Each structure stands twice: as C-alpha cells, then as structure tokens.
C-alpha cells in the first residue's frame, strides 16, 4: 500500500499526522505531507486507513500495490 496527499485538497486539518505520525508530518504552514516514499509497511496499513477515513477534505489517497 502507498499513501499520497492531494495538495489541491489538503487544507492542513492535521488529522493524518495526528492519527498516523509514522506516515505523515506537517510542513511549515501546517499542511500534511507524506514522510519518506509513502510506502506503508504492513503493520501501518490500519493507521493509513484510519487517517484517510478521518481527513475532512478527503485528501489522503491510498493505493493498493499490485
């Protein structure tokens, strides 16, 4: 699984970096950013889904790797 943030939608609510701090961080203006390459280790998948489901702007995008 891979996570990305759609910068057009993100408004910096910070739910992603609250709920999954190992996957997301904030930039200097509070917008969310993906840490590293966005590849989610298997034990991080649940946190990734919770972050995506709580982002008020639906800006967290999950893609399942084939």
């Amino acid at each position: 699984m891979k996570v990305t943030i759609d910068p057009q939608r993100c408004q910096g609510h910070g739910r992603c970096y609250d709920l999954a701090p190992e996957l997301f961080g904030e930039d200097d203006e509070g917008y969310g950013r993906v840490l590293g390459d966005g590849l989610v280790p298997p034990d991080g998948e649940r946190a990734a889904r919770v972050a995506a489901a709580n982002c008020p702007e639906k800006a967290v995008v999950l893609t399942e790797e084939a």
Partner: protein
Amino acid sequence: MTVDDRFTRDLRQDPPTGTRNEVVVGPVSDWATDFSHVEPEWAADPYPILDDLRDRCPIAHTGRFGGGWLPTRYEDVAAIAYDTERFSSRSIIMSNYRPPLEIAPVGGVPPISSDPPFHHDARKLLLPAFTKKAVATREAATRAFCHSLIDSFEGAEVVDAARDYAQHIPMRVIADMLGFPPEDGPRFREFVESALEGVNLPPEERMAGMDELFDYLYTQIRDHVATPRDDLTTYLIEAELYGRKLEPAHVAGTIALLLIAGIDTTWSAIGASLWHLAKTPADRERLVAEPGLLPTAMEEFLRAYAPVTMARLVKEDMHWRGVDMKADDWILLSFPSANRDPAQFDRPEEVIIDREINRHAAFGLGIHRCVGSHLARMELRVALEVWLERVPVFGLDDPSAVTWAPGQVRGPRTLPIRIG
C-alpha cells in the same frame, strides 16, 4: 529608517454604508420558513430542529435578517463551503446588516471575511504561528494555568465550569500570543458577546460595541509600535504583503478576529465536553480509566457539539439545489447540522467516545479551515486532561440551571458542576 505612522491617525471608521433590514424577533412560527438561530428555543437545543429540517426540507428559509437559507445536510454544507465563486465570506455573521460590496475581497476581519484571491495571502501570514508544532510550545504554560484554575476551586462544592474554568483558558492563551495584558480578560468577554451575541440589538448599539473593541485594539497596537515584542501583534505590524506593510485596518481586523474567534469557540468546546461528561458517568469513568482515549473522545465532542456555525452571502440570483436564492441572501452554514447528518455518520445522535471514523466538519471545510484548529485542540485536550486528573468525580448540580450562548457560537455559559 522611517517612522511607522500608520496607526497615529484617528482610525475610527466612518459609519459603514451597507444595507440594513427591519429587525424581526419573537417566537418562530415554522422553522422551515421562519428560522432564527438567536431565539431561546434554538439556543437551548438546536439539534431536534435541525434533524427535523433535514428530513423535511432539507434547505430551510427565513424572511428574518433580510432573508436567508439554512442547508442542513452535510453534502450541501460542504458544497457551499467549497464554492467560494458563488458564496461570499464578505460577512460571516448573519445579522440585520450587510456590509457594502466594495469591502470584498478583503472584508473587515481578514482572512475569515476574505474571498479569493486575497484570502490565501492573508491566511498564509497566520499559518506558521498556528502549526501543531508551534502551538505545542504553549502546552506547558496552558497546563500550569489550568492547574491554577482548579487550585482556586479549593473548598468549593459547586463550581461554574463555564465561568470559572472554560472561559479563562482560551482568554489567557490568546492574550499571551497577542501580547495583551492578561488582566484584560473581562473586557475580552464583553467584546465577544457584543460581536457574536448581540445580532438583533439596534445597529447603533452594535456599532458602539465594535468601536470599543477597535479603540482597545488600536491602543494595544500603538503600544506595540512604540515597544515591539516577540508576539503576534508585533508580527502583524511588521508583516508585509505585496511588498508593503499591511493596511492599519487589516492589522486591527486580523487581531480582532484572533481575539473573537479564539475565545468564544474554545470556551464553548471545553464547556460542552465537560457538560457531556458531567451528565454521562459511564463516559467520564471510562476516560478517567483510559486517558489514552481522550484524543478520540475529543473529536466526538467536537462533532456532536460543534460550537461554530458560519454564514455566507449569495453572490448572484440563482437556482441552487431546488431553491431560488437571491443575491445577498444569507446562508447559515451549520457545521453542527452537517455533523449530525445520518448520511455521513452512523448513529449521529449518539455520542460515541471511541468513534474511530469521524470525518467531522467542526473546524470548517475548504479554504477557510480554522487556522486555530491545532491550538484549539491543544487547549481542549489539556483542559480536559487536567480536569479529569484533578476532579475525576463530578456531576451536573442542577441541569435546569445550565444556559447556552445564543447565536452562531454555541456553548454553555452557565454550567454549575458539583465537585465535592
């Protein structure tokens, strides 16, 4: 170096032009056609009204306030928050006065009153001071202050959790950030009440209240021009946009916004959370036993008792999702109603403190997302942590004595809690 003389003139603004309508008060005949968010029935409990309207309208109308609409579904609230082309933030408090069109896109209190493209630039100035990381530096002082408030309960059996606890926390935090004297707290409360609660007062009274607020702010600003400090007021005095320092009215308007938006809202969120816990022993006991659940529970309190409703003005006549909107009609943008829409949330009327999926809109949606949301969450979490640690057992002393603020920011204003 040139002297900064932007604030030396008499900056009282001329009486605004804009348009006024007749003030209509009194009991509502039918909420679908005559709603009013400032009547006592709404203040006491708006949720049954909103639930009923969502089933039967779902966009209610009123002739009061010169005409306005109340969308109640999450989907409609979100669509309006995102559509800054057709809905303007020129005024965000639904009242009997509409400011003149010329004040757009800046508005009186940027960035909340601003429309694109100006909005983004005004907002950007504020963001760095309000990141999660930046507000974390205030946590220790906030915690110490909460403890000092609880210390003052010593010996009391009943305290007013709204008046003696919740209100002081955001007042102190924002006074520190702006570099205002902490002892001016009682004046902040007057400013908040006149800006947000007096919407049906005669216009002269409303304007006198605003003049008092701005006189106070300009005094503070001049003091900061004379003696710059490391705080937000000095930061805004020095800030530049498009290669120039800000207009005096922008500096004062933004400070007014931070003061008003920072206090009433957070005070309401802390108060509503304590009210819920005081009347729900099972939730209170669970949070005392499992403090790690607090961040999740807090989001649920924010969803279920979202303190803030905003307003917009329709830009042009249009047919929108089944209703005929006219230019300058109000939209009462109810994030509280969106947060209780069954199409968006399972069992929305229940407060479920371990609700894991909670895409609520208490801090708004789209470009105006609350700049202070990280600060507000820190304050709310610390206020509840300290309270639960120091006063783990408490309950409502007299449920009928609880009063709620009327208008667009709703939270307990009297909240007698038995602690002994």
